[in-house]
C-alpha cells in the first residue's frame, strides 16, 4: 500500500511539473511580457526593452521558467496588471463561493444518482427506466447554457419564483441563505451532472447484478433489501469513485458557463470577465489551478479506490 501510494504520488508530481511547463509555454507565447500593460499602449520600443531587461523578461526561457516555478512554489500565481491585484488575492476572494456551488452540486448529484441508477438497473427495460434514460440522454446532449436559459425562461421569467441571477452579495452567509438566487444554478448544475452520473451508476449496477455473488446472496435467501444494500450498492459504487475524481474538469468548466449565465460572483465569472479584457495572467493561472485540481482529484480517487476495493492493491 505504501509503495503504491509513493509511486502514485510521484507520478502525480511529475504530471504537475509537466502542466507547469505547458502553462508556462502558453504564457510565454501568448503573453510574453506585461510591459505593454504596465507602460501603456503608446510606450516606445526602448522603454519596453528596458522594462523587460529590468524585470527579467528578456532572459533565456529556461531562466524565466525557473523563476516562474519558484514563484508558483511560493504561492505567487501571477499579477493582473489590468486589475492591479495579485491573482492569488483575486482567487482568495472568490474561491469559497465557487467551491460552495460545486460542492453542493457534486454531493446532490452523487446522492441522487445512486438510487436512480440502482432503480434503473433493477427495473431494467421498463417504462420507468426508459423515461430516465431518455431524459438523461437528452440532457447529456444539451449544451449546458441552453439548459440554464430554459430554466431561467420558465422559472424566473414566465413563472417568477426564482431569481434569474445568482446572489450579488459578497458575504458567504447571505449567499448560502439566498435560496431564491441559488436554487436555479444549483438545480441546473445538479441535473446536468446527474445525467452523466446516473448513466454510469446504471451500467455499473447492471454489471454488478450479473455477478455470481449476487446470485449466491439471493440463493441463500437473503432479503432483497440486504442484497441491494450490502452487495450491490457497495460494489456498484466503486466505478463512481473514479468518475467523481475524473469529473473535476467538467465541474470547473460547468461552473464557468453557469457563473457566466447567472452572473454568480465566483472564479468562473472572474475567468469570463478576464476573457473579455484579455487578462492572460488570470486566465492561465485559473487553467493551472484547474489542472492541479484535476490531478489532485484523480490522485484522491485512485487512493480511495484502493482503500475501498482491496482487490486493486495488487496493482
Amino acid at each position: 500500500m505504501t509503495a503504491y501510494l509513493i509511486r502514485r504520488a510521484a507520478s502525480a508530481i511529475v504530471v504537475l511539473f509537466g502542466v507547469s511547463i505547458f502553462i508556462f509555454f502558453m504564457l510565454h507565447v501568448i503573453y510574453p511580457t506585461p510591459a505593454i500593460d504596465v507602460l501603456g499602449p503608446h510606450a516606445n520600443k526602448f522603454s519596453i526593452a528596458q522594462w523587460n531587461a529590468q524585470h527579467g523578461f528578456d532572459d533565456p526561457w529556461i531562466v524565466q521558467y525557473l523563476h516562474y516555478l519558484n514563484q508558483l512554489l511560493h504561492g505567487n500565481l501571477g499579477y493582473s496588471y489590468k486589475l492591479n491585484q495579485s491573482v492569488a488575492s483575486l482567487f482568495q476572494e472568490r474561491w469559497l463561493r465557487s467551491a460552495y456551488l460545486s460542492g453542493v452540486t457534486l454531493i446532490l448529484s452523487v446522492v441522487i444518482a445512486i438510487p436512480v441508477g440502482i432503480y434503473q438497473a433493477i427495473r431494467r427495460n421498463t417504462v420507468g427506466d426508459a423515461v430516465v434514460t431518455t431524459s438523461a440522454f437528452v440532457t447529456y446532449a444539451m449544451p449546458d447554457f441552453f439548459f440554464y436559459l430554459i430554466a431561467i425562461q420558465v422559472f424566473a421569467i414566465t413563472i417568477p419564483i426564482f431569481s434569474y441571477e445568482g446572489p450579488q452579495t459578497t458575504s458567504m452567509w447571505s449567499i448560502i441563505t439566498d435560496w431564491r438566487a441559488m436554487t436555479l444554478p444549483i438545480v441546473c448544475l445538479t441535473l446536468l451532472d446527474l445525467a452523466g452520473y446516473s448513466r454510469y451508476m446504471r451500467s455499473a449496477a447492471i454489471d454488478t447484478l450479473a455477478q455470481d455473488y449476487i446470485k449466491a446472496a439471493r440463493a441463500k435467501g437473503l432479503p432483497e433489501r440486504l442484497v441491494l444494500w450490502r452487495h450491490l450498492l457497495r460494489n456498484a459504487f466503486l466505478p463512481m469513485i473514479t468518475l467523481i475524481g475524473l469529473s473535476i474538469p467538467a465541474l470547473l468548466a460547468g461552473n464557468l458557463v453557469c457563473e457566466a449565465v447567472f452572473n454568480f460572483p465566483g472564479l468562473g465569472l472572474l475567468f469570463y470577465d478576464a476573457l473579455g479584457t484579455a487578462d492572460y495572467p488570470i486566465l492561465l493561472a485559473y487553467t493551472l489551478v484547474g489542472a492541479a485540481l484535476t490531478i489532485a482529484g484523480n490522485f484522491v480517487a485512485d487512493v480511495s479506490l484502493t482503500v475501498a476495493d482491496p482487490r486493486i492493491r495488487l496493482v
Partner: protein
Amino acid sequence: MSNIAPELPPPGLEHIPEGGAVGPVQSGWRLAVREFAQNKLAVLGVAALIFFVLFCYLGPLVYHGGLTSDLTATNVPPSIGHPLGTDNQGFDVLEELMVGGRAALEIGFFSALIGMVWGAIWGAVSGLAGGLLDGFLMRIVDVLLSIPFLFVVLIVAVRYGASVLGLSIIIGIFTWQVPARLVRGEVLTLRVRDFVSAARAAGSGRLRLINRHLLPNSLGVIIVTATFSVADAILAVATLGFLGFGLQYPNFDWGDMLNNGVTYLQDGYWWQVYPVGICIIVVVMACNLLGDALRDALDVRLRRR
C-alpha cells in the same frame, strides 16, 4: 528489406480447409454491420446526421432567406417569407441555421480526424515501444488530459481569434489523448498475439507492424471515440460562440446565434433561441447514439475475435 506478402496463401490451396468443408465464414466486421443495422436508435442517429449534412450543405442552394443585414426587417416573427423569422440584424434565421451548422459539422469532423490520426499513431508507437519511451509519451498524455480543455480553447480563441481551421486544430490537440490511451491498451494486448508474432517472424518491420496489423485491429476503438469527440467538439464550439468568442461574421455559428437570441429572451422572441438550441441537441444526440451503437456493434466483433 524485400516485402514478401505473407497474407496470400499459395494459389489453389484456399479452398481446401483441413477439417473438411465449412459454411461461409462471417467476418467480424460484417457481423458488426448487421448488429448495427438492427439497432433502431443507431439508424435514427445516422438518419439525423445525414439530414443535417443535407440541410447545411444543400439547404442554402435551394433556400434563400437572405443573409444580408436588413435593418428594415429585424426580429420578424416566423412568416411565409421567413419560416423561422429574422434576428436582430435582419438575417433569416433558417438560412443562418444552415450556414452555421456547416461550421459546427466541419469543426467537429476535422478536430476528430486530427485527434484520431494523431492519437492512433501516438498510442501505437507508445504501446509497441514500451519501456522508458512509453512512460514518457504517456506522461505527456496525462499532462494534456489534466488541463481543462475548454479554458485553453477559450484563451486561444481570445488571443488569436476563432476560425474554422484554428478551432479544429486546437480542439484536435485536446482530443487525441483518449484515443492514444485506448489504442495503446489495444496494442498492448494485440502485440503478444500469434498473428503479430507471425508477422514479426515473417520479417515485418515496426512500421509495417503498426500499419498493417496493430492499427487496423484497433480501428473499432478509434471510430467509436471519434463519434463521441465530434459531439464534444460541437458542444465546445457552441459554448465558445455563446460566451461571445466564437466565429465572427461573415461566418455563422450556432452558439453565437444563441448568444444573440438570449438578449431578447424577455421580449419573447422564441424563434431566435429554441430552433438553434434544438439543432445543437439533435446533432450532438445523433453523434452520441451513433457512438453507443458502434460500441455495441464492436462488442459483437470483439466477441468473435
